[in-house]
């Protein structure tokens, strides 16, 4: 198993955290992982993205130019990275922030999730990244639930000392997972 991801969105949508979350959970599952952020002024307001690799075997290049998985939180990200997605790759798109999703004539599996609306329904508008994460977990079937739970602890307890945020983020992940699985059944 080897998944090369690009995760992209506006600065502030939590794409860096989402990438680190996945890398950390992957590491706990015993996988080889790497995470590279885009850095610099674009972090503030513009498009921010990170590259993540999760693999059973050692990672040669941690730089992802052709992703297997693209997680996009806004329109500019989709426009920028869609052409690079590999054949039989998957795209998870935040339809709350992407008005028009083009028809794909290549062999790419597209899952569109209104992540922002779902997060707001849950009363956690900042948790749209966790809805996207749940969706990824639903499609790829990993990292494990145990690792995801440990990553939640690290992200909200160790890092920011806000254990109260865990239940709502866990719920956001679950909603994303359900939607992805429902989508898969419809295929």
């Amino acid at each position, binding site marked *: 198993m080897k998944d090369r991801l690009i995760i992209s969105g506006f600065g502030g949508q939590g794409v860096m955290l989402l990438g*680190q979350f996945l*890398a*950390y959970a992957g*590491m706990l599952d015993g996988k*080889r*992982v*790497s*995470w*590279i*952020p885009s*850095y*610099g002024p674009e972090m503030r307001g513009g498009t921010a993205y990170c590259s993540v690799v999760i693999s059973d075997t050692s*990672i*040669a*290049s*941690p*730089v992802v*130019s*052709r992703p297997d998985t693209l997680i996009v939180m806004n329109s500019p990200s989709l426009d920028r990275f869609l052409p690079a997605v590999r054949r039989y790759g998957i795209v998870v798109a935040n339809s709350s922030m992407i008005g028009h999703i083009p028809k794909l004539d290549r062999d790419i599996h597209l899952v569109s999730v209104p992540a922002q609306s779902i997060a707001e329904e849950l009363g956690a508008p900042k948790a749209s990244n966790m809805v996207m994460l749940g969706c990824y977990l639903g499609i790829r079937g990993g990292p494990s639930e145990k690792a995801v739970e440990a990553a939640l602890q690290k992200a909200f307890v160790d890092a920011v000392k806000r254990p109260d945020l865990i239940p709502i983020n866990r719920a956001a992940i679950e909603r994303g997972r359900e939607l992805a699985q429902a989508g898969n059944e419809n295929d």
Partner: protein
Amino acid sequence: MKKKQVLMKGNEAMAEGAIMAGCRYFFGYPITPQNEVPAHMAAYMPRAGGVFIQAESELAAINMVYGAAGAGARVMTSSSSPGISLKQEGISYLVGAELPCVIANIMRGGPGLGGIQPSQSDYFQAVKGGGHGDYRLIVLAPDSVQEMADLTMLAFDLADVYRNPVMILGDGNLGQMMEPVSFCKFRKRKLPPKDWATTGTAGRPRNIVKSLYLIPEQLEAHNRKLYRKFQTMKRREVRFEEDIPEGCELLLTAFGTTARICRDVVDKLRQRGHKVGLLRPITLFPFPEERIKEVSSRVKAVMTVEMNMGQMVDDVRLAVEGRCPVHFCGRTGGMVPSVEEIVHEAGKILRGMKE
């Protein structure tokens, strides 16, 4: 048993490695993309009983390093390309006064203010001296977050062994990247006491830390002494990693981030039936010239891949000495070459061999 792994940025792993290696003094000035290093030092150095100072400039930082090194401490500074240019005078003085220290350059694109994205365009500056005068640094080129930690630990010992600054030459990509890293307990080598340090004259004749020799005969003797150290480094400290198959046709050479990318290139070309190898220098000075010389006599061509317009390739050519063609493939200005474009370039060379 598997060692405990932590997910860390390269910059953080380097800072942590330094502290574990006994570095207790860090002087730095902010510059992207190495800001995690001073941030980590500011947070953790006081807990280790050490000192962190945000200096007023790169010049001040490297000269604080000089003072602390001259007082016998394990000391470090880090910066990125433009900041390293500013430190060059100080680095020249450090070599001249034979002071050990570790300097990290997390390279970004140049020249001038350039950009902030990763680059390898300070290769010449790092391995050929950089500042004024006839000198060399030991230059270590990590290619993973784990090596950012491990080579930094090694750097402190090498600096003390040779009484010479050691440079960690990383790039923005390695500094910003997160990978799992495990820290093993640092075992310091047996090293001679720093009886040359300026610690007060109690119980001994006074010590002078200096690089001024106004009498040319004395300065020449000093230069010859330094040269002998550089020759010893060449004999003892060459480090590289290679994966060269039997009957290798094309040898890739690359360091740091580009070497990681080249491993995927090698896999891809082998899947297509080509015999391709990779040699990754870990020490850029001393350069693995003997090994490249040996290998070049049994391959059909060499291609060097760098994030610059062609710098290490000059040293590869010097080692190959015309035994086979040496090609270059590079991106620069903060662009990172993709596996696909390197495969494309290599493909052209491999097709040329068949014709």
